[in-house]
């Protein structure tokens, strides 16, 4: 009984505002993946980070999310003409990216002294068609709409790194991975890395898959971090999880 009025309402909206004004989620084309060549690709369910959508890496401090984000950023600088970092707290040092062999000519850092500027910069660059945007913090809620529409149109890959996202920011993301440190890695009495579990907490591009375990080694000594890059320690540990966030 409810479907009839709903269909009528949908039809009237389409007649009044055009056929593109309203689209059923099931009719939307699936997002195209950007293969990041990290274990995260496996978690998304589409073989890469979704283009035109916001991906969140969340977790408390020292869980490895920033290292993982730097790895994604370095890969993006090699594959995209424009890889942007929206640095909300002026804490990004390009030097930390060097162990991942970035293509620095493609890297641009936007130092936003206020969240409003960060929001404007992110939405503007996504609309302009920057290939990859790394968000180092949250942006105001009213910029999330322009951000989503701009990125959707241009296909920009957006990755946000944040300890605990706010409700609006979490809602705007299409794919969220929660990282938590499970163990430190010690070798010869020296801390060389950490183990972390990465759990898919939200997925709007494919059915939520599960979790995996990552081993992250810090760049120590002569061996760069890139040689110890993030890798999956136990593929068999993949297991189905309960659906945390339904497809909206």
């Amino acid at each position: 009984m409810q479907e009839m009025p709903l269909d009528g309402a949908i039809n009237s909206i389409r007649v009044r505002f055009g056929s593109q004004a309203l689209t059923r989620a099931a009719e939307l084309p699936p997002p195209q993946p950007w293969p990041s060549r990290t274990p995260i690709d496996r978690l998304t369910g589409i073989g890469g980070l979704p283009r035109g959508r916001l991906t969140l890496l969340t977790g408390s401090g020292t869980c490895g999310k920033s290292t993982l984000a730097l790895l994604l950023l370095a890969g993006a600088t090699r594959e995209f003409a424009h890889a942007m970092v929206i640095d909300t707290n002026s804490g990004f040092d390009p030097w930390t990216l060097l162990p991942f062999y970035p293509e620095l000519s493609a890297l641009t850092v936007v130092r936003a002294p206020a969240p409003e500027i960060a929001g404007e910069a992110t939405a503007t660059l996504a609309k302009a068609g920057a290939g990859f945007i790394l968000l180092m913090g949250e942006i105001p809620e009213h910029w999330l709409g322009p951000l989503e529409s701009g990125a959707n149109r241009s296909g920009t890959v957006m990755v946000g790194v944040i300890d605990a996202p706010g409700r609006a920011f979490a809602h705007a993301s299409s794919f969220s991975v929660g990282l938590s440190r499970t163990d430190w890695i010690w070798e010869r009495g020296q801390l060389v890395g950490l183990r972390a579990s990465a759990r898919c907490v939200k997925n709007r591009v494919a059915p939520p898959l599960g979790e995996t375990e990552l081993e992250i080694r810090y760049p120590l000594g002569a061996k760069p971090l890139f040689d110890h890059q993030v890798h999956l320690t136990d593929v068999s540990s993949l297991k189905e999880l309960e659906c945390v966030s339904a497809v909206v």
Partner: protein
Amino acid sequence: MRICCGLTNHLELARRPDLYGNPVVVGHWEEHVVALSEEAMPFGVTPGMALRQAEHLCPQATFLPPDPEAAAHLRELISSALYDLAPTVEVRLEGIAWLDVSGVPKPGESIREARRRLKTAIGREPRLGLAPGPFSARLAAARARPGRLVQVDKARAFLAPLSLHELPLDAEQLERLDLLGLRTLGAVAAMGPRELESQLGRAGRHAVLLARGLEPDELTPWRPPLFTSAHRQFESTVEDREALLFVARALCSDLAEELGLRGAGAKNIRVRLFFEDGSQERRNSFVRHPLSSAAELFGLIGSWIKEWQPHAPITELWIELPVLESAGRRQLRLWAGGDGNGEEVAAALERLQERHGDEVVYMPRPHLLSSPLPSQRFA
């Protein structure tokens, strides 16, 4: 090199075609004659003489004050009318139009079309000359009947019998040459450039080269004005920002289309809003990279309009691009994703810098990576 020259009236006279056939003298009182019609010449009036003297010699002439702006505007119109006939065009206020028809596929058609357009612009048939250089082409045109062409193949032979007074020399220099026994261009051409240079200085050398048909002077090519604009006058006043954005987007598309045709880009963008009370507000900005696409233009102008707080209903919107330059298309990095949007991304970054300061955007380039100080590692 083949130069076609079209001779018409002085452009000051072309402002008043109703006076054709009557003696007309143009000049300010207490000053010199700027231009005169052919009908005034038999009375002894010459360009440069005092206007009072001209009045004394030809009292029946119509005396007009000069209007340099109108004449310059007419020159621009004629230049733009001839621009598509030959790559190099020069038009002077004296009523001389040169076209370099070297390499033009059908020079005859271009010359015929130039004659037709000059007649339309001036209202009189031009005299035409075709010669290896601008000097000989002008002299050839001066010897043609109205609407006819005098063609010169060997400039030196054509110039040789002509009077010495055709050379661009002042009266004193001409008198000096006369004292030397030089009466024709052929006599001047027979002298060595250094010999005449010792007598007249640099002008002497120049005169010898002209007389020999070597054409030392080159044309100064006219180029289309580096300015374009688009505007919309509203039938009823506009207070709705969305409507203003809609119109701005359409104007940006028009401008981008024109820029694309001209292969140009704009570094200076100006927007003016005219209000109901007759006042206006404007905003102007310089960008580092020339904007050429509709998205780039509207990206900047749309952001202005979104934050603009007009004090009254708007009656007219102007978008002006005062300085155009080459758009400088770049080679795409074919293997890098999203490089096709490079100009739009660059424009977006510039807008951010314009709004929030240059320090907002930072492109790290390695400097002293081994330095212990983080500030020294990147430039």
